[in-house]
């Protein structure tokens, strides 16, 4: 990372190093469904809302409200339990949770799986905004149009091996799928 060798032993090390991983399993691993938006948002970055190891509840609410606004999360209040939100809004909460850790590299695993077209488009916009601020985004996706439509570069994995890299201008659905099924570029 920026020339330094990383020794990551646990997720805490990764967060401190500036990595964030947004899981593909948002209900199982990304969120605590029974807790409200506020508690979920601060969960990976409690330091950002604490002082002397004491959580400042006002600060927590203030920051969550910022994210609810900037990510356009549709909810009556930040105290809504995330289980009551739609898939797209849940995904935005997970995204907000990891943005709060101020990552340098944000890894998104299937960021738009199972959410509607409108929410997808908003998540794409957020991705572009983050990139404009200098964040790097790595996006895993099984939806070819999404990979090809959003990425600057595409790497293709086949059976655990890197099977090719394409610049977006040369990446077509056919080429990518050929690489993904184990074929070669030619």
């Amino acid at each position: 990372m920026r020339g330094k060798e990383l020794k990551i032993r646990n997720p805490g090390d990764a967060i401190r190093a500036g990595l964030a991983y947004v899981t593909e399993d948002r209900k199982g691993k990304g969120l605590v469904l029974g807790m409200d938006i506020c508690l979920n948002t601060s969960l990976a970055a409690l330091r950002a809302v604490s002082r002397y190891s004491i959580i400042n509840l006002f600060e927590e609410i203030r920051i969550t409200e910022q994210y609810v606004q900037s990510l356009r999360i549709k909810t009556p209040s930040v105290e809504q339990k995330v289980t009551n939100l739609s898939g797209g809004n849940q995904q935005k909460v997970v995204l907000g949770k990891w943005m709060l850790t101020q990552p340098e590299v944000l890894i998104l695993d299937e960021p738009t799986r199972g959410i509607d077209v409108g929410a997808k488009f908003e998540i794409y916009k957020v991705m572009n905004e983050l990139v404009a601020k200098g964040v790097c985004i790595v996006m895993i996706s099984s939806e070819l149009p999404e990979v090809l439509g959003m990425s600057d570069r595409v790497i293709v994995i086949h059976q655990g091996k890197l099977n090719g890299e394409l610049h977006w201008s040369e990446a077509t659905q056919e080429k990518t799928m050929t690489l993904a099924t184990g074929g070669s570029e030619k």
Partner: protein
Amino acid sequence: MSEHILEMSNIVKEFPGVRALDDVSFQVKSGEIHALVGENGAGKSTLIKVLSGVHPNGSYTGRILVDGVDQQFQHIRDSENVGIAVIYQELALVPQMTVVENLFLGVERGKPYAIDWDTANSEAKKYLEEVNLDISPSAVVKNLGIGKQQLVEIAKAIAKKARILVLDEPTAALNEQDSANLLEILRQLRDRGVSCIYISHKLNEVIEIADSVTVLRDGKTVSTHDMHGANRLDEPRIVSLMVGRDLTERFPRVEHTPGEVVLQVRDWSVQDPDDPAKNIVDNVSFDVRQGEILGVAGLMGAGRTELMMSISVSVAQLRCVARN
């Protein structure tokens, strides 16, 4: 009657918010190997779940005919009764039990109050022979290799008198020799009149073994092709049928100018927790630059999630180094 052992017509299956199957029609002739191909999410698994009664009659619209007779499956057992057997990628054997116990699980041989082990064992031997499997019926399943376990599943399907055998990605976890063996057995079964629906991402196998190929895309049937006629498909044709859609969804593409390299990953490997001899991620190297979006494409199970998860949430034992 009809030459088709199985006809599914105009199947529509909706989940909240998505139409997983949109007017899919699919016919299988008796005694053929019919490959079903399509991208992730094209609807292959949903179609199989409709066929096997996992999604019961009433939760979808459309008709299923076996031997020309209308079928309304409420349970998996209903579909098994007409001879449909599905072998999923994650095998459904009980690892701690023996081969013979697994073969007749739920259909134990004997009287209501006692299992007749002699009959069970001798029948088991016969079924194992049919799949060229030379193991003792009293072997414990978890001690068998994955290739052999797969064959036990097939023997189990034969024991249930399956006439339509559905295999979902059967060779995904197998090495080349086991795969070749499996394909050979499928051919033998076909020659005895068993029809087989074969789902696979390995297009070379599809071309090698299939008598017909049906391509699904976005929940719709694209086309069915006879693999023996003049119009047979080659790999590039299948790929283009699988993805051949226009980029209708709009993406807010913004030109980024990637800056310096932020994260470099070199020679990254992750061991398969289930099989220490295998790497689920094997020697992957890549860079991520400031202010860019790097897409990671691949099929399900290619190792993408494992790669990224191991980097950001890595386990102490992983001897992985990310260095400049």
